[in-house]
């Protein structure tokens, strides 16, 4: 009779092995992550969707109004303007941060004091965005006794220019601040990527008679295209969430000329007490982020990234 348990044990063992790949085990191991994602990601998304169809005046979500919030948003000039401004940010901020970052990384690589240059360029990253805004608000001040930029323009007998008060300059002025603050980040990332290019490739190109310009555009840029695209996605995501620089520097003004989406959400929520409309802005923001995230996920799937 002692043989029977021995005989039984192999199937048991097989069953154990089978259970290890079964749903129960899978769920057990996934549970902690799933619960966290459900609480902090999935639930807030649905909760926000629910809020966005409610009037939500002063945070009381008791009256469902359907799509009224969305319709009313589309009729709000400041909201439409904020989307246009965000597009400006996405185009100019992302492009220039990558251009400057790549340029500085390539140039710095060729000099002995590379570490010093990168440290200096990276320095603005260490400054809180609000402090960045305050510093630049001083730089842009109209009074040449305070504003560095107008003091310099004063020397060549131009201005003073009201950088933050003129609707035709204000967005450019703010985007410049953003670029100044993020170029260091791009430099560091791209510098690391450049270091990953094998020297043989570059040497082979030089042997074949390529000039430095050709090497940059035909070899370096294609070889770091993946880090660049990841960087671009990161920057775009950051810019869609952008709030601090306009908040500190202009308060969305003059008029509504420098409002961005996140600032509009803040205004609807904290200033106007219209939580339902603010939630609708959040949903629009989410919708804008989906294609960017989809692109990112596809990139992750297609190949390994730095």
């Amino acid at each position: 009779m002692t043989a029977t348990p021995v005989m039984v044990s192999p199937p048991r063992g097989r069953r154990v092995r089978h259970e290890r790949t079964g749903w129960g085990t899978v769920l057990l191991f996934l549970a902690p992550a799933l619960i966290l994602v459900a609480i902090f990601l999935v639930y807030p998304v649905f909760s926000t969707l629910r809020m966005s169809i409610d009037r939500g005046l002063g945070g009381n979500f008791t009256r469902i109004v359907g799509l009224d919030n969305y319709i009313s948003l589309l009729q709000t000039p400041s909201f439409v303007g904020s989307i246009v401004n965000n597009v400006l940010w996405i185009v100019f901020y992302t492009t220039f941060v990558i251009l400057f970052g790549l340029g500085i990384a390539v140039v710095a690589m060729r000099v002995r004091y590379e570490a010093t240059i990168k440290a200096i360029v990276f320095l603005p990253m260490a400054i809180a965005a609000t402090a960045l805004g305050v510093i630049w608000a001083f730089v842009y001040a109209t009074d040449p006794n305070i504003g560095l930029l107008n003091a310099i323009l004063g020397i060549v007998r131009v201005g003073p220019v009201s950088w933050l008060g003129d609707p035709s300059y204000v967005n450019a002025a703010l985007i410049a601040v953003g670029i100044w603050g993020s170029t260091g980040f791009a430099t560091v990332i791209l510098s690391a990527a450049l270091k990953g290019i094998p020297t043989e490739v570059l040497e082979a190109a030089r042997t074949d008679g390529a000039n430095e310009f050709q090497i940059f555009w035909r070899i370096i840029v294609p070889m770091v295209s993946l880090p660049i695209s990841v960087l671009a996605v990161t920057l775009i995501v950051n810019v869609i969430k952008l709030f601090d620089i306009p908040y500190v520097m202009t308060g969305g003004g003059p008029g509504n000329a420098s409002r961005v989406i996140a600032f509009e959400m803040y205004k609807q929520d904290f200033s106007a007490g219209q939580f339902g409309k603010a939630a609708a802005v959040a949903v629009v923001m989410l919708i804008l982020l989906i294609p960017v995230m989809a692109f990112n996920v596809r990139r992750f799937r297609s190949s390994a990234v730095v």
Partner: protein
Amino acid sequence: MAKFPRFLTLPIAAVMIVSACGGGGTPAPAGGSTAPGGSTAAGGSQAPAGSGVTGATITVTSLWGGSEQDAFQKVLDEFNKATGNTATYQAQRTDYATVLQSKITSGSPPDVAIMPGLGFLRQFARSGGIKKISDLGIDPTSLEANYPPGILDPGKVDGQLYGLMVKFNSKSTFWYRPDKLTAAGANTPKSWDDLKALITTLQSKGSATPLALGAKDSWTLTDWFEEIYLRQNGADAYKKLFSADGDWTDPTVSKALDTMKEVLTDKNIPGGITGALGVAFTDGIAQVFGTTAKADLYYEGGFVGGIATGQTNTALEIGKTIDWFGFPTFGGPGDTAAEIGGDEIAALTTNPGVKEFIQFMTTADSGNTWAKTGAIISPVKAVDASSYPNDLAKKEAAQVAGASAVVYDGSDTLPAGAPDMGAMLQDVIQGKDTTALLNTFNTGVKSAWAGEK
């Protein structure tokens, strides 16, 4: 300075006489009988505040910090001395109404809140967040004698009294540099045409851009518009415009905006309109009263005096390098009216000590203590004009006391959900299509009023 006391005599005398008459009805914290009216929860006659609850501790929240907080703390100390109850101050500097709402929703509101802006007062009153004054066992009609007519009106929601004004500033004050006007041989203007003439005179005497404007803070523009609208159309039309019945497409509105644009021009303002849109409220003060002044005139409320003499330039001498004149008139119904901006106190609980605190804030005792700090003008009639520490504040109190009608800051009266009036005006002074802007604004304001119900 010689003519100054004469200017003051009448209003001060009026205040004193009225306060002497009204004194009997004032709930005195130190014993005396409180105001008539028997609608207390306890039934029968109201207990005198002084012999009410003692030893209670309540929390009071507002958005003041710095010197304003220090000034208010003196009032709280006086409350403790007078009633034996303690009030603890909690500052909430930003996003005031939202934080307050979340505290109410979470069931732990402060006992008393001082509210900036009436839109939120109405919202909280209708959602049940704040208590009626009568819920505290205070008869609203008993308080009326303590205040000049109209002062209690902003605190009423749907006919019920929820908030009491505890402090205010005049918004009908136009600040200037007396020394610069004297040097140009000019007098302070009475009418709007005088103001325009004064600007031209100053320009001809070497002050290229005499009128400073801090339009980056867009609320300075709402005050400009409100003053002009009030002066041109009178208090009743003003109140109607800033009520649910207001029509922003009315010709009077665009007329007031056109009037505003007569002086707010590229020629008159340092850096022109776009320059002013980059200048903050306090920077605008500095353009007139700072050490490197480049303008001579600045319109904003009575609080400019404290900021200019306390922060911008401590060397300023009242009457010599800083003073104000009443906002210019148009020969219309609103010439003798005054606009004020102020804060409303409201109870969020009926805890022991809350009633005592609200009552204390209606007394001359609290008003005098606060007025002496120079931070505020007290709406309490019994406050002695000599309590104010300087001539600027005394004159400001007298201006409001002597006004034929007192109206409340209109932009603070609009529903919280209304479009940004200041941003709209920033567009107007840039010369954008006023009719289109007003149409959009009118639609937004109308739906915000409708949405409030």
